[in-house]
């Protein structure tokens, strides 16, 4: 396992490196006057030019990339041009909030999706499967904002049992006001439960049709033993990989959900940074996302190898 991890690390580093170049280039496309952004709309042009020079935004592209990545590696992500704060702590706190939301979402998604998917897979073509499949399809096809708006309508406007805004006071942790986490987490979960349940269903059907399951049946094993001892672990391989690969989708959902509920996460930060063309925040946030995606990819590989020993040697 350790060896596999080590083997994977160069790929991991390469993905991050390529991402960093892409992110840098993408944010360089933004027509932004960094100095003007930082000094505000009423600052005189000379001051803006001087600051631009001081920040090195007038240097050639390659040199700027070198500076940026060098600093980023040493932990200095620069200062937000719109918030006048060091980007590192800013991003981290928001990312923490988003992580709480993501974990809350996942803690709903996983049990529901896997159980529903398993049931559907085991009853393929019969009534429970048809019901679960249809619901899953509808859930995964409904955009987060539609789900969010409908939930708001029901729970915040009509019944008024849950807060319609998840804005947090100060640096308060979202966990301190769990009620504010409910609607965002449920919205997140509803969209993804469908997706992962469908994966699990397909995977389960595939595994149940595999020769070793038939072999197990022919050895006289009970249905329970076949499902729980033999099928589940193998059926989990695809959904687990998908869940991991799915993290960037999850992040996308989080951006929208944070916008609906005014939840102070990284998505909101990135949305406002994009609006304000706050390049350092955009770059750092994007880099963090890329890092998260690459790490989850790595984890997916390792988890897959753990679930599927065959891959441990072959996948290397």
């Amino acid at each position, binding site marked *: 396992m350790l060896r596999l991890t080590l083997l994977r690390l160069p790929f991991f580093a390469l993905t991050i490196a390529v991402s960093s170049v892409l992110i840098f280039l993408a944010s360089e496309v933004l027509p932004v006057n960094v100095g003007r952004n930082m000094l505000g709309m009423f600052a005189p042009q000379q001051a803006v030019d001087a600051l631009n020079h001081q920040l090195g935004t007038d240097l050639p592209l390659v040199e700027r990339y070198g500076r940026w990545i060098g600093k980023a590696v040493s932990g200095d992500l620069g200062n937000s041009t719109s918030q006048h704060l060091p980007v590192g702590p800013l991003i981290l706190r928001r990312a923490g909030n988003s992580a709480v939301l993501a974990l809350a979402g996942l803690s709903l998604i996983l049990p529901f999706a896997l159980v529903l998917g398993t049931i559907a897979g085991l009853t393929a073509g019969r009534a429970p499967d048809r019901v679960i499949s249809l619901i899953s399809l509808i859930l995964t096809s409904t955009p987060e904002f539609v789900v969010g708006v409908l939930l708001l309508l029901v729970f915040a406007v009509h019944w008024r049992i849950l807060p319609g805004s998840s804005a947090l006071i100060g640096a308060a942790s979202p966990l301190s006001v769990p009620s504010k986490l409910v609607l965002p987490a449920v919205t997140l979960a509803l969209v993804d439960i469908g997706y992962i349940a469908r994966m699990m269903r397909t995977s389960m059907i595939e595994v149940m049709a595999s020769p070793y399951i038939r072999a197990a049946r*022919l*050895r006289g094993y009970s249905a329970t033993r076949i499902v729980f001892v033999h099928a589940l672990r193998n059926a989990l391989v695809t959904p687990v990989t998908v869940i991991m690969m799915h993290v960037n989708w999850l992040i996308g959902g989080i951006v929208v959900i944070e916008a609906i509920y005014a939840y102070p996460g990284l998505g909101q930060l990135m949305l406002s940074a994009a609006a304000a063309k706050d390049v350092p925040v955009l770059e750092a946030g994007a880099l963090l996302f890329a890092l998260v995606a690459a790490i989850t990819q790595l984890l997916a590989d390792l988890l897959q190898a753990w679930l599927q020993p065959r891959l441990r040697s072959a996948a290397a």
Partner: protein
Amino acid sequence: MTSALVDIRALSVDYATHDGLLHALRGVTLEIVTGEVLGIVGESGCGKTTLGYALLGDLGPNARVKGVARLNERDILAMTRAELIAMRGRRVAMVPQSPGDALNPARKIGDQLREVLFVHSRLKGAQATARICSLLEKVHIPNPQAIMQRWPHELSGGQQQRLVIAMALLGEPELLVLDEPTTGLDVTVEAAVLDLLAELRRDLGVTIALISHNLGAIARACDRVIVMYAGLIVEAGTAAEIFARPRHPYTKALLECVPRIDRARSAQQPVPIPGNLPNPFAALSGCSFANRCAYAVFDCLAEQPALLPISEHHAAACIRWADIAAEPVAPKPGEAVQISSTDRREVMRIEELDVTYHVRGTKGGGGILKAIDAVSLDLAQGQVTAIVGESGSGKSSLASAIAGLRPADAGAIYLDRKLVHWSLRRRAGWTRKFLQMVFQDHTSTLNPELGAGRSIDRAVRLLGGARGSAVRARTAELMQKVGLDPTTAFRKPSELSGGQRQRIAIARAFAGRPELVICDEITSALDVSIQAQVIAFLQSLQRANGTSLLFITHDLGVVRQIADEIIVMYLGTVCERGPADAVFSGPNHPYTQALLESVASPDPALQRKHRPLAGPLPDPAERRIGCPFKTRCPKRLGTVCDTTGPPLRSAGDRHAIRCHIPVEELDRHWTPVAGTHISAAPKNGVDNISGVIGQ
């Protein structure tokens, strides 16, 4: 008097599919007697596997079953789910096809073995381990404790097969059903598995139903044989009777179209069975084999003949069995192109060719794998040269390298005495016309999304230089030469049979009248009757055009049938080469000898002793010093084999053997006998190193 363990009466199984009812079994009646080994033989689609699963009551939800299948007076097909669970594994156990797939990839071997024992006899702990270890030893798995700690994928195909057999035996079943247990194994491993079955039967007294398309394996292992065709039993009897005196035309034809290692090339010509299996979705009218039968008469079309006893140990479903009895099994004689050494014209020559792969080894870091290690050889015009060897011998790599599809690292390739680049892209245009290839996998040799004739058409234009209506004519001509109706060109490849696809591939290869055609295991996935057909057309085209063939195969029978020259490869090196007759008559390299000995002989009367090769194929990624065969050689001399590469010694006219043992001391044990020895075709093996090679 032996008692019937299994008693099947008029068993029909139909499967409900999208395209209608598929008739898998059309009324089968048979008994399996306690203690016997029953062989169930037939080509793909004959219903033998369905029969096997019926014995375990596992036919799937879409199966429509009629008839009874009694196991000790209890009807398996009427059992409740609980009864089935109680029966399976304990009374009837199954060893499914491709043992690798029958093992849960995510659980260690030991856990899976212990589970069987726990489920069947609630045995746990040290007691269980002891039972398992003793059984593993019984199936000749060395070091059981260590094996139990490993994952299924870490075992070789042969080990997996032994393991699955052991798992089946753990429940102490009365009946063991083995579905194609030797398919996919190399000939040496196949021989060992068959030995094991004989041992188990002797030591444990277990009743065995052996399902196989491999006539040789059946002949070697079985007491009694049933031959199936189109969901029916067409002939049944003792092995000796069936193989010596087949009374059904299908059995007879099958035996005739199997290439034989024990008969000189001049004495055999591939005899295909014309036509196809009857449509499995249609009801039968008359004898199922009538439309392909050389003996068919009008009466045959009346009804399907019943399986009737014709002697004490023999039954056949043919109204003309008596007429057939009059004709001996006698294949048509073949003819060989004799080329004397003086007028040999070289079409291709390779010198010191190296082909290497960069691989990540299973243990430790990556390495370089020499698939081909300094191989030199030359081909003469108009000759058929066969390269044989087990999987992992590098024979396919050699073919690809010559074709320019795989980079060669060192050495030289000459086509028509001209040095050519290793890369196809950088070879001159004439080489494409000069050299063509037919590929192994018939499922992918044609583009599934294009009309079947399309690629012949293109080849005719590009290589044959034809334009306009000439293209049409030439394509049609080529198709007729491989026995296909020109309209076949319009069909989708998926609508064609494997044999038809391979015949189109052959037609395509010959479109530009090449000097040299490389055939890479082109029949390995085909049934024997189809194989005979393909080889017959290949041979006729080759002879008509005077084309040279480089024929890659693991099937010594086919080699015997068509090769003028033989090259035996082991681990990327040539260990023996020479004219076919010389190689088949010896003396031989110890490896060649082992291969020849392993070929299962179909005649129960003619079983030879063979010495199993020691150990598995070594890890090809390891650096080799000395003789590559030293680890498994039954005649190993000593340190000289470990330290010094063996010399290539001449053993006669163009016959050479690479061994430290002087030619005179090498065995000349193989003499063609006039008996009926049959070698059938296992698929290209995936033993041990398949994970490393050819990914």
